């Protein structure tokens, strides 16, 4: 006997047909419930797409402007990296770069020298992060700083100059062509100051860079800090198709032979931000889940009312030999279909909104002004159009709606047929 039809049970086609027609029996109630579910699904889909979008953009931003895919440090540096120590530099950079560059999955490497500094225009003095970058070639192969230049030009080889975060420039009230004094403590512990002209302003959307960093040529930084031939980190860019964890593991193995080195992926470097993003996502999901649960209570209520109204019909079905499981199946299907209907409405409406913002983006400047939203995202936020995630959410809505119908379905299936048939 085919599995779809067993004695005492209804085939799936019959159950679906009955479920769908019963939904149409009380259209107004069905649409009210579906609209509630649809609204919840709409906001859930939009929020999810927005969260994933802003997270992806943030990660790209961090990789492109701050962390690269990975960084190689001297042993012990990473643990105290917030102090920006200069006494644990990378030495023999050429050998290190050659070793890391030969690792499968690595696209480019570049040394950087990061240090604590004070910037002064003669009146104000602001503590900043100074970053010495290799002007010729490699830094632009690993990072995307040139694309973030909003005014002036990127650093030029052999010329003194500074790329200043646009927020910092605003704080000082300075622009391209103006001069700033860089004050820093050298590796030996002495104080050193140099005057540097601002050649360009950068706006990355990353507050750490825009409002707290400046870039100078690596040679200038080395000269100022007394660290000839040294760097504090070797930033690594992976190729597009490389597996992050596998490449990281390969680098780890490759540098093990050199000794006294440590490699960290961008996720390790930015673990605080990732924890923040995860917390924010969880918070949003919990908030929206409450909304969805409230909508599903509507499904419970609708199915409960339907089961009451059809008490005699249930009694008749039982009299004809429908088992309790068959009755349960009917109401669970009805609930699921109601959820799927609402989910489809909400998902389609969300699809239109998401498709628009995935292309046009959401103007963060217009929405938040200069307020820090906690994500390193520049100007526009782009939603992510993920059909699979949307489909799964829609199906999950049907499943949850069926779950919400469990109680009324179980209640209906446990009725005494004699009483049910007498019900008026």
């Amino acid at each position: 006997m085919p599995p779809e039809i067993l004695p005492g049970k209804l085939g799936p086609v019959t159950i679906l047909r009955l479920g769908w027609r019963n939904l149409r029996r009380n259209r107004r109630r069905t649409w009210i419930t579906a609209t509630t579910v649809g609204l919840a699904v709409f906001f859930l889909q939009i929020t999810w797409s927005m969260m994933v979008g802003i997270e992806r953009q943030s990660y790209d931003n961090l990789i492109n402007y701050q962390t690269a895919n990975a960084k190689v440090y001297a042993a012990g540096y990473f643990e105290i990296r917030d102090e920006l120590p200069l006494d644990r530099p990378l030495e023999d950079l050429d050998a290190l770069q050659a070793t890391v560059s030969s690792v499968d999955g690595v696209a480019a490497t570049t040394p950087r020298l990061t240090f604590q500094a004070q910037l002064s225009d003669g009146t104000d003095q602001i503590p900043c992060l100074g970053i010495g970058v290799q002007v010729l070639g490699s830094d632009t192969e690993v990072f995307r700083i040139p694309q973030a230049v909003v005014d002036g030009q990127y650093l030029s080889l052999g010329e003194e100059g500074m790329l200043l975060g646009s927020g910092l420039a605003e704080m000082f009230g300075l622009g391209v062509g103006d001069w700033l004094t860089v004050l820093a403590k050298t590796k030996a512990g002495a104080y050193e100051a140099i005057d540097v002209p601002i050649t360009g302003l950068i706006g990355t959307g990353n507050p750490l860079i825009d409002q707290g960093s400046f870039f100078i040529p690596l040679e200038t930084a080395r000269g100022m800090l007394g660290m000839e031939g040294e760097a504090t980190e070797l930033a690594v860019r992976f190729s597009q198709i490389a597996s992050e964890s596998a490449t990281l593991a390969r680098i780890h193995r490759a540098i093990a032979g050199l000794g006294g080195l440590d490699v960290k992926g961008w996720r390790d470097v930015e673990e605080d931000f990732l924890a923040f993003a995860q917390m924010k996502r969880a918070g949003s999901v919990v908030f929206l889940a409450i909304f969805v649960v409230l909508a599903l209570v509507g499904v419970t209520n609708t199915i409960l009312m339907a089961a009451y109204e059809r008490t005699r019909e249930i009694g008749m079905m039982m009299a004809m030999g429908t088992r309790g499981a068959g009755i349960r199946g009917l109401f669970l299907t009805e609930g699921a279909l109601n959820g799927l209907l609402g989910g489809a409405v909400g998902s389609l409406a969300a699809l239109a909104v998401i498709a628009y913002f995935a292309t046009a983006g959401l103007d963060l400047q217009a929405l938040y002004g200069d307020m820090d939203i906690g994500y390193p995202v520049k100007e526009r936020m782009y939603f992510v159009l993920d059909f699979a995630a949307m489909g799964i959410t829609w199906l999950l809505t049907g499943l949850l709606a069926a779950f919400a119908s469990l109680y009324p379905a179980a209640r209906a299936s446990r009725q005494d047929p004699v009483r049910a048939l007498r019900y008026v």
Partner: protein
Amino acid sequence: MTVTARLEEVKKIYRVGDLEVPAVRGVSLAIEAAAFLSIAGPSGSGKTTILNLLGALDTPTAGRIEIGGRSTEGMSSKDLADFRNTHLGFVFQTFNLIPVLTVRENVEFPLQLHGISDREERQTRVDTMLSEVGLAAMADRRPTELSGGQQQRVAIARALVKSPTLVLADEPTANLDSATASEIVDLMQSMNEKHGTTFIFSTHDPMVMERATRLVQLRDGLVESDERRNGGRDAS
């Protein structure tokens, strides 16, 4: 004479709070195959309770019930459902068709429950049955598009389509005018004669009682009289 259903000293007592209400006080009946049996009696005499017990919708407090040679004693609710599915057909006073299904789908419904997976076989049986009850032309209508008499014809077709051992009808003509009621009894009688299906029905209507081949009168949960008759049928 083949006995198709048997009640032996059946009692049914309902409990209402601390109060015990005896609905059936000890009824014994042997119902022969192809009977057209009417259970009559005043309200509260136990007609519906007897039908519910014979319909495996309820279980007796004491005594034994056998249908088609099988006792319903000790059956779980699932077994009772399967038993009803296999052996019994029901016709209700208020027709109780599924309003969202067409006439054809309503009649097909018990066949699906019966486990007949061959769609063609189901369709053939449904079409045959609808022709027999004179509703072939209305197969695609919804119950709400039918008169009371037509709905009851559908209910009869639905009860008979799976060829049950017994068809139980609780006041099948109570919601119909006398002309339609007469047509429905004619139909039940012709089905009884044609298919040899046993019909047991409760009624208050003397016209319906007159058509029965056996009339069981109940009073206060006991059999008051049990009379065999020809029910207005030809002696041949």
